[in-house]
Every structure is written in C-alpha cells, then in structure tokens.
C-alpha cells in the first residue's frame, strides 16, 4: 500500500469538521453532491447525497449504527453499501473514503467521475 496517499485521493480536510452523528456536504460542480458521514462509532462514510427513493438529502437524516434514515420518507440506507435496508429496494452510489493522519480522503475518480476522453 506504499504510495496510496498520492494523487488519486482527494484531501477534504480534517476529521473534526464533522461531529459524530452528523454529516456534511460537498457539492461537486457538474456532478452529484456528496454527503460525508461521521457515525457515533467514529467511522466515516461518503455517499451521493440522494436517497434512491425520492432523492432526499441523506446528509440531513438521523445517523444510527452505520445507517442513515432519510429525512423525507424514513428509508434506511446503509452507509457502507448505499443500499436501502428492510423492505425498500434501491441503492445510492458510495464514494471510497479513507482516514489518514486525522484527515479525510475521497477517491478522486469517484468524486469527479470518469474523465471525458
């Protein structure tokens, strides 16, 4: 894994910008807004900020375990997989995230999408 912190990871700042149980947003010009979550267990996850149901902003939902409950219609979405839990069906894209030395990094290509050739 030597060299994994190079250019393909996008530094989005220190972990303490997001308090546990909360999420914050990262608009992407020309792309989908990303929600970055900090769970009560101190894990971090990034998802496209749109519920697969009616595009509710997941960043505004209640976080419990590693699940967020969408604020619009209470769908439960797994923060790890982006999939709707329980009876509901649907999936929102996740963005690979890593924490390194107190900073958050998102996989650049997943943030900005594939480059146009």
């Amino acid at each position: 894994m030597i060299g994994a912190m190079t250019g393909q990871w996008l530094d989005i700042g220190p972990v303490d910008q997001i308090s546990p149980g909360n999420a914050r947003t990262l608009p992407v010009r020309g792309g989908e807004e990303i929600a970055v979550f900090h769970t009560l267990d101190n894990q971090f996850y990034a998802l496209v900020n749109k519920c697969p149901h009616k595009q509710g902003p997941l960043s505004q939902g209640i976080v419990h375990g590693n699940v967020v409950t969408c604020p619009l219609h209470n769908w439960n979405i797994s923060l790890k997989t982006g999939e709707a839990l329980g009876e509901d069906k649907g999936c929102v894209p996740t963005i690979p995230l890593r924490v390194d030395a107190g900073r958050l990094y998102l996989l650049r290509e997943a943030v900005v999408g594939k480059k146009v050739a």
Partner: protein
Amino acid sequence: MTTRGNVAARTAPSGSVRGGFFAFGALVMMETDVNAPMTIKDSSLPGHTRERLVVIGNGMAGCRAVEEVLARDPARYAITIFGAEPRVNYNRIMLSPVLSGEKAFDDIVINPQAWYDDNAITLVSGDPVASIDRAAQIVVSASGRIEPYDRLLIATGSDPFIIPVPGKNLAGVVTFRDLDDVDKMLAAAETGGAAVVIGGGLLGLEAAHGLSLRGMAVTVIHLMPTLMERQLDEAAGFLLKTELERRGQVILTSADTAEIIEAGGHVAGVRLKDGREISADIVVMAVGIKPSVALAKAAGLEVERGILVDDHMVTSDPAILAVGECVQHRGNCYGLVAPLWDMCRALADHATGAPTGYEGSVTSTKLKVSGIDLFSAGDFSGGDGAEDIVMRDAARGIYKRVVVKDNRLVGAVLYGDTADGNWYFDLLKKGEDISNIREALIFGQAFADASAHGGGALLDSNAAVAALSDDAEICGCNGVSKGKVVGCILGGAQSLDAVRSSCKASASCGSCTGLVESLLSLTLGGEVERKEKTVCKCTSFTHDDIRRLIVEKELKAIPQVMQALHWTTPDGCASCRPALNYYLLCALPGEYVDDQQSRFVNERMHANIQKDGTYSVVPRMWGGLTNPRELRAIADVVEKFNAPMVKVTGGQRLDIFGIKKEDLPAVWADLNAAGMVSGHAYGKSLRTVKTCVGSEWCRFGTQDSTGLGVKIEHMTWGSWMPHKFKIAVSGCPRNCAEATIKDFGVVCVDSGYELHVGGNGGIKVRATDLLCKVETEAEAMEVCAAFIQLYREQAHYLERTAPWIERVGLDHVKAGLFDDPDAVRRLAARFAYSQSFMQDDPWAKRAAGDESELHQHLAEVRPLEFVS
C-alpha cells in the same frame, strides 16, 4: 574497530553470490521493487567474524527484535544498542502502574544489565543516535560516537503529539512517554494541587488515573464526545465516563483546548475554546503519538507517516530494517504493543535467513485502570451483513457488544466484564465459524461451550429456557425462580402483565421480560401476544415503561437509558433516539442537555425540509397578527434570497419556501432584526395559536379572542411536545378560528370560555371533546398550561392529543386535571418551570453563528481544476 571487507562490498545482485544475505536481497527486490544497491555479504570471506547489527532504540521493539534474533541464531551478530534514555530496557506500557504507585520501576524492567552482558550486547544508553550515514554505513551519536554497521535496525518508537496551542512549552506541561515524564508527574503530585490531562484516550486516562491516585484533583479534557472513541462505542464510553466521574475525576468531553495559561513562567491552567478555564499545577499532554521518523527521514529513507517497510520490516534501504511504532506497514501505523511482537518475529525470521513475513495485526485494547474492566478489539463499525449482539446488565454495570459478520466474529467491546475478552479476540483473529455457538456467543465462552456440546440446543431460546431447572432465577431484581413463574402462569397469570402483577417477575428492570415470555409460551403453548407494542426493535419496553423508568431510576442521558433498560442495539435507531431525547427533556427541564443527533432534521435545522432538500421558513406571528415592519422584513427576505414562493398557511402565518440550508442563518438574522422569532412550524412543539378577530372588531365577538390568543402563544411558544400541538381561540360559537379541530381550542361565549381538547383536522378528522368551561382568561390560560403539561408528561412520543385521548379516555384526562383541586395549579407550574428554559429563540443563536457547520458545506469540488 577493524574494517571488514564485506562492509564495502556493494554490488548488483548476481546469481553467483553465496550466503544468507542473498536471500535477503532477492526478497527485497521481489517485494518492494526497490532498485537500491544491496549489501552483499559472503561469509566465506577470510577474516569473517560476526556481522554487526546496530539497533537504534533501547525500547520494547528494539530489544524484543534482538531477543528474537538471538533466539534463532545467537552467534550471527555482534550487537550494539543505542538508547536515548539513560537506563536499561523496560516495559513502557507498565508506566501507568508506576505512576499510580501500583508498581515500582524495578518491577517493569524487561532486560537488566546482565542480559546485555550475557549476550555480549554493547548498550550505549543516554546517548541518542544523531545521524545515519548510509553510504558509509555508520551511525553517529549525539556525543560523537561512530558505530559502523552491516545491518541497522531503527526502532525509535514514537513521539508524543503536542497540540500546537500557546503555552505548550511552559514549565509544568509534560507528556506521558517515558520514565522521566513519570518522575515529573510524581514530583508535581507530591505537592498535591490540580492536574489537567489533555486527551481522553488510553494514555490520557491512565495518566489521569495515576495522578488521581497520587492525590491530585484531575480534569480530563477530551476533544471528542466519547472517551477513547477509537476503541469504544458511545454506550461503553458513557459507562466509562460515569465511572471516572464517580471516582472524582472531572471529565470534559467535546472540549477543545485554546491555550495553556501561564503565571510566573509556569503553567497555571488551561483555557478552552468555549471560554471555560480550568486551573492546573501540571498539564499532561496525552492526545496521541506519532511515529518518530526524523532520523530516518534525514537519512533519506522513504517515509510517509511512518518509515515505510515491507513484510520483512525492510526499509527502502535493504541494509536498514525498522520495527515498532516508528514504521508504516501496508498503510498502517500501530501504537499498541501486540503488533510489535508479530513484527519482531517476522524481522528475526528474515534477518536470520528464514523469512516468513508480517501481514499486519488485528489489535485489541485493555485499559489499565484498576477496577475498570474494559476491552475492545476489531471492527465494530457494523456494515453490510454485520449484526450486533448486545447484552447489558445494568445492575452489574455490564455492557457487552459483539459484531458478527458472515458467521464470524469481527469486533467486540466489553465493559464491566472482560473475562471473555481473550476468547473473543482469539475467535476474531482465527476467523472461526461461530454459527453453532451464535445464540450463546454473547454470554461468553463457558456458555457457548455448553451450547456447542449440547448440540446447539440454545439455538432455540425457548428450548434454553425449558432446559433451566425449576430453581433457576428468572428475575434477579425480585428473586423469582422459574418454578415460581410457571406456578404463577398455571395459577391463571396468562399474560406478561398478569405475571408482573402476581409474582413481580419482570416488574422492575424488565431485563428478564424475554425469559418470562418464553415461559408463558412454553407453559401455555403458542406465541404470547404482547398487549402493547414496544418503542422499537431496540428494546422490549413500551413507551409507558420507559417514561416511568426514566423518572424512577433517575436516568439522565440517552446512553444511560439504553444501558439501564438493556437496549439491544449500541446506539438505538431513528425511532427510539428522538423518543428518548424527548422523554428526558420533559422529565428533566433545565438539566437535560438536548441531543441534537437524536432530533429529526427539521428540529435540528429549525426549518421544514422540502422534497428538493431546501427549507421553508415560518416566522412567528403572535396570534396570527402582523404589521408593516414584519411584512416588509419578510418581503425583503423573499427578494434577497430569491425565495420562489410565499404562502399563507392554515395556521395564519407566512411560509417562505425554497431557502437553502446555507442561507438559513442569514435569513433568520434578517427576520430577527425585524423582531420576529422562530415560528416552530417544524417541530414536535407548539405550532400556532390561530385566532379570529373577536370582540375588538367583530360584531358577533363575545370576548377578546385575538388578545387571548396572543397571550396563550406567548405562554406556550418554544415548548417541546410529544407531537405537534395546535391551538385556536374563537371569539364566538361561529368558531371562525376552527378551534374544535385543534389540540386545544377555546370558544368564547358571553359567560366565559369553553375549553376543548383532542381535535385534529388531519388524516382522521376528529372534533374536540369539551373539557370544561371557565369564567376568566386567567383560568383559561391556566387550564391550557395544565392540559399541555399532562399531555407532555403522559402521551407517547409521536402521539397527537387526539389518539392519546382516544387511547386513555377523556375521563382519564379529566381525572388527571380535576380530581385533585390543586392538580391544575401544579401542572401549570411545572409547565411554566419548563418554559423558563425553553423560550429561547433558536434562530437567534444560529444567526449568531451557533452550530454553523450544520449550515455550511465542507468544501466545493470544481472538477475542471482537476482534469489534466
């Protein structure tokens, strides 16, 4: 020192080279693709004695590596160890017991001087290495000593992380890393006084414990909301905090240090970013450690967070190895002791010509604070397909949580009883299939073994209960045996409630509810139906149980409720968290600190979320009255923030739509400036008091309904309720304010005021019930306050007044208010007391910058800048 031929013998790898080093060089090439030249040693060269191994670091990793090498090939190396500290090798992780006085330094020495002598090791202590010359293959110490090496081992460990605040270099600010630090703390403790420990992780808490035992008044300052948040979940962290506080330490979580205060050149205290000041005679910085890489970096080795090593602990220079906390292996740096042992094994295997490789470590943590049993290992972040099994025993202060995924144990947190920690850790490391002991897993090894040997009988919980003997205790609180419960059921107690009232089993803490239900089902056959539903899947308790127990057991925080009432999930769910938050808020006005993470988005953002993720904003207009100043301010906000729609609501307010979350504080600031406060159109709270114009203007009006409405709204605004709450005041029985479909409605008549309750104009329209009739405004207002308080104290969370009254009956409500002639006054007084803390405009605080992170994006990504 003689110079030996092999030192300078550098050449490209070649198949003709013989001896142990070849294997070493070849492996480096394969594993890390490092194209550096290698040191090749041919042991058949004449004059060969031993290879020279120089170790930088006389700590746990350096010495352990040497021990491992000696165990494999004692004759291979001539060994020199450099240590910065002027003493022999000791067990650094046992410094905590030295600080607390439970151990002496001699007790924690690993290798006494005799060990160095017996193994012909040269120990250079108190003289740290200052530089490495890789080309000449020598190290130079601070005192100028030059030591050539064939093989160099860097084991410099880690340095304490010093937070960059003013005052960090003051006398009296110490770290907690070595014996000198301990001595400084002990010296400070001798005179007593106050200590501040910055950092509520493993190290900080151990330092705090030691200083506390030495008689100092200790305050721990921790940046995060949960102590030891890297090892513990919220529930275990809460128990730990409670226990430390019980022992007299002051624990400040979510506390950020702004500066260390000075007085006369010495530390005098710590100031937090929120302005609080804590005085201190000594400040211990224990926020964390960072790999000590300066020496390696200066020597030009590849370094990221730590010194980069491959699976054989070889750095980017094949002649140089590194081990311990200073290294970075496969992206990980370790700050615990167990990985060192694994690294040292791999290093020694490799350095003695039989490479095996290190594959990283799974770590576990135990807190070395006497009397507190705490264990954590693995990953307890849950995840896809992961299942939490939680067991809580409030009476014994135990919290256990294991995480199972794909029939394997992946994580464990234990508090209060860590006897099975090693067993869990073993299961975790081995990745064994635990499906046959799954049901018994949480009860520990003894239970699981019995279950496995019993052919998995415990897979069915009823079978497990059936297997219990008649004198087995079911209810610990009331000492009820299985035989007694069964006797009760056979005697006619055919429901949970009946069992509770006849033999008291499960009537206290309720943790045996599941067992009693199993007995009911076994004894009566078939599934037992619970009359009342539980709050959610996280608990076996009903809303009423929880409300009652919060008061009875004097519970004061959400994690405490979850622990005391045996929640089956670590931190609840979107159903129970808001309910518990409300129940605590209602039970402890002025005392309970609202948990924002347990609030629905609208109550967190103080606005109503709309389908497109924007918000609508409703400023309060008392009784539905407004004026040019307010209307102008609203119009200005609409234009300034480009709100696409303004709408008159059913509650006689103006609703501004399409406001972005980033703009909310600015919108509120503008509305505040015109004298308007939050309309709480978003909350489970008092929404609006709707009025008609009443006797002041209307030719039919009998009383001043607008005036009364305004007064009632001033009395009730800002109160949190089980659900939203709407009020209306009509000036005559024509009822233009539609008071008879409100939660509380006043219909004015010539002779006074008719008070109506439990109306609802929603999905299921319900007209109000007449509660009573009073003669004066003052009485109307007092009954209104009393009714609201009764509803606040008794209804279930998310239950409007209409279903509440349908459930409990109007007579119950009337009895609660009027049976005792003093009840109305007392309820109204409790409401007024609660309101004294609630009537604080949330918008004003946000507009002033409170919780600004809720409204701001982290950053914005502009992809064009990244496209190359």
